[in-house]
């Protein structure tokens, strides 16, 4: 098991390293950082002055190593736009996004897992059809549209939840539903087909011949096998939530990393953008690693 984790970790680290190089070079080579800071109408001399002042005249490799080694010292650079260390921006904004991501994945789990199980246990029944209907609708509806509709119904017409902001727990309810809904179709369908396969497997017949029936049969004998693919997808979806927060946070005016990313892009704030891209990628990798480990824990055949 330890060897398995070590092996995966090496893969994750090398992907992370590659990612840091790609992000840095894309943002610093394609865009001229000095021009970005100076603005579009700046004079040539001004740009040159900024280039010297910020050290952009040095080679890109040197700057990369400076930036990359800084990450390990907790020095992520200074934001030109906010005029603050990027690290303090991240620390300020992260809690909102983490709350939103975790809550929306909880929404996904709470809707899709029970619905998937019920649909699998009663294939082609009314509940199966309702579940399919929910899945198709959730897949077809765009995020931002659902967000606006939710605000119209549950914040304006029937004022149960606040329209926007991030002060209290209630502020996160609507955005979590919106963000969580987008993952419901994939997870629910996987749960349904997975469990349906397992229910018809030989070892379930064995369990039934040993006298197990009903919910005990489903939970003790079938669910763990059926959850394997679901766990992988859920982890990927959780990673997606961080990326997906860009739109949802903007619609609901939540001051999280997603909104920070949008503002930094609009403000051409390269240090913040490159760190955010890198952080989102690392989060994604981390959850994939977590999924692999969880899967190996659940399925002994994967522990090689």
């Amino acid at each position: 098991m330890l060897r398995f984790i070590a092996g995966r970790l090496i893969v994750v680290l090398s992907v992370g390293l590659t990612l840091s190089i790609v992000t840095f070079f894309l943002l610093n080579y394609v865009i001229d950082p000095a021009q970005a800071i100076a603005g579009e109408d700046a004079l040539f001399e001004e740009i040159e002055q900024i280039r010297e002042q910020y050290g952009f005249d040095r080679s890109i490799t040197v700057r990369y190593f400076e930036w990359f080694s800084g990450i390990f010292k907790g020095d992520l650079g200074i934001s030109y736009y906010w005029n603050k260390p990027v690290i303090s921006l991240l620390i300020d904004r992260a809690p909102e996004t983490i709350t939103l991501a975790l809550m929306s994945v909880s929404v996904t789990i709470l809707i899709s897992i029970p619905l998937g199980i019920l649909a699998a246990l009663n294939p082609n029944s009314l509940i199966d059809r309702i579940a399919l209907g929910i899945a198709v609708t959730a897949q077809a509806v765009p995020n931002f549209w659902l967000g606006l509709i939710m605000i119209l119904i549950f914040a304006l017409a029937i004022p149960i939840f606040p329209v926007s902001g991030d002060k209290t727990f209630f502020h996160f309810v609507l955005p979590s539903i919106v963000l969580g809904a987008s993952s419901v179709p994939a997870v629910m369908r996987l749960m349904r087909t997975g469990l349906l396969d397992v229910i018809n497997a030989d070892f379930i017949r064995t369990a039934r011949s040993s006298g197990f029936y009903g919910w005990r049969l489903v939970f003790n004998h079938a669910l763990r096998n059926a959850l394997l693919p679901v766990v992988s997808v859920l982890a990927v979806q959780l990673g997606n939530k961080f990326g997906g927060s860009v739109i949802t946070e903007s619609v609901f005016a939540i001051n999280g990393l997603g909104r920070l990313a949008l503002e930094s892009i609009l403000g051409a704030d390269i240090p913040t953008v490159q760190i955010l891209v890198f952080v989102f990628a690392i989060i994604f990798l981390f959850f994939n690693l977590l999924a692999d480990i969880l899967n190996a824990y659940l399925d002994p055949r994967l522990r090689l």
Partner: protein
Amino acid sequence: MSDLLNIQNLEISFQSNNKNLKTVENFSINLNEKESLGIVGESGSGKTLSMLALTRLLPKQASVSSGSIIFQNRNLDELDNKNFYKEISGKKISMIFQEPMTALNPVHTIGKQLLETYLYHNNVSVEKGIERALEILDAVKLPKYKQRMDQYPHQLSGGQRQRVMIALALINNPSLLIADEPTTALDVTVQKEIIQLISDLRETIGMALIFISHDLGVVSQISDNVVVMKNGEIVEKGKTLKVLEKPNHPYTQGLLDCLFKLEDEQKKNQIKDTPIIKVKEISKSYKLPAKIFKKPEIIYAVKKVSFDVNFGETIAIVGESGSGKSTVAKIINGLINKDEGKVEIKGQNIEDIEISDRAKIIQPVFQDPYSTLNPIHTIGYIVSRPLTINENKSESEVKEEVIKILRLVGLSEEYYNRFPNQLSGGQRQRVAIARAIILKPQILICDEPTSALDVTIQSQILDLLNDLKTKLNITIILISHDISVVKYFSDRIIVMYNGEIIEMGNTNNVINIPKDKYTKRLMSSVFSLKKNDIKFT
């Protein structure tokens, strides 16, 4: 002895397209305590269904439409599902199945699966449960049984898993064990051990046994009484010895004939002394996917195999699954490339023979006639393809030829325009053979040509191959795991194990005086039902 189980007039119907199809009718059996009953029949005869009805494991579309089941003086029909599962399933009546590879839950340890089944039916402490689990694993003679508790099913071999399955079924000391083809999926050498184990455990535990099988030979070894089923009905029942000695129903007689015929001598080909195929030190290996920091592991499917096949000879390659026998056949057929070595056909290197020429010399017949025929083409088209591709003939000539060949394999002209799904398994295999011989090849490679077929059909196909062999003077390479088929059919035997040839020789010599240890095990594991085995009482 008292009655344990009494099933009267059981009827099972299948719901399909709003039609009710009766699949089992008038099924009545009576079983005493500690008795063993064999149920014999071909696939689709209803032997498994009737037992699934007893254990309430019928597929959703099937249901019991009438009949009564009395078990231990209790009418089971009066028991609702919940109580049936709690009081009967796994406690009084247990079942083991054909496929041990998938019958155990892959994500739970052996110990957990045993323990759960025991604690579910018995109100005892976990310690007592573990004690019992170890006891039963020891009883089923699982090697190193103490370490197995923490192992997962995938860490065990097929035979070991079937032992665990048996332990799982017996952990609650049931009064009745139903074994549904428990050895069919296992290698022959393991088969005999498992049969012996079930037989021994029945004695020690003192339970009754219902043994379902398509193999009369196996059933005759283990059961006191036998029931023969055909098309959902019982056609014959009685004491096993009596039924074997004096079958009343023509179907039973037919089954027995098929078994006995394999003992008779068959017509031999004229064998010339010159080899038609020369196989010299061929090897084929596969690389396992590489892991980080590890050299990729290499597995040899075939390792330095050499043999000759003479003109007109029938040579059999036998061995367990994974022994490399099919790989050898595929290499000779040119279907896969070898890594090393040389295959010569009629003195020519196989790589140097044009594919179209090769097709005229050597043709394959495969195991599964259900998937080897393209379902969207007619039989006529399928059989004619080799001709239209390789030879320049007019349409009427081709049709004439195809009909001639169909007749030769025992199919009438009517089949020309039919589709594969309108044919039975045996008929499909005849079509596959027709397609193989239409180019009049000199060599036929038959890879388990009968193992997917029922016994009666099996012997018909063997007859056909035998007939063609002498009529067309074909050299045959037969791949099989079935020693009785090999004995009936071949002049020489090659025994393969782990990719290597471990014994080779004249059929009678290899079967009667095997030299190698593994060959001995292989030969002794065959349940042959010999005519003189049946004692006349």
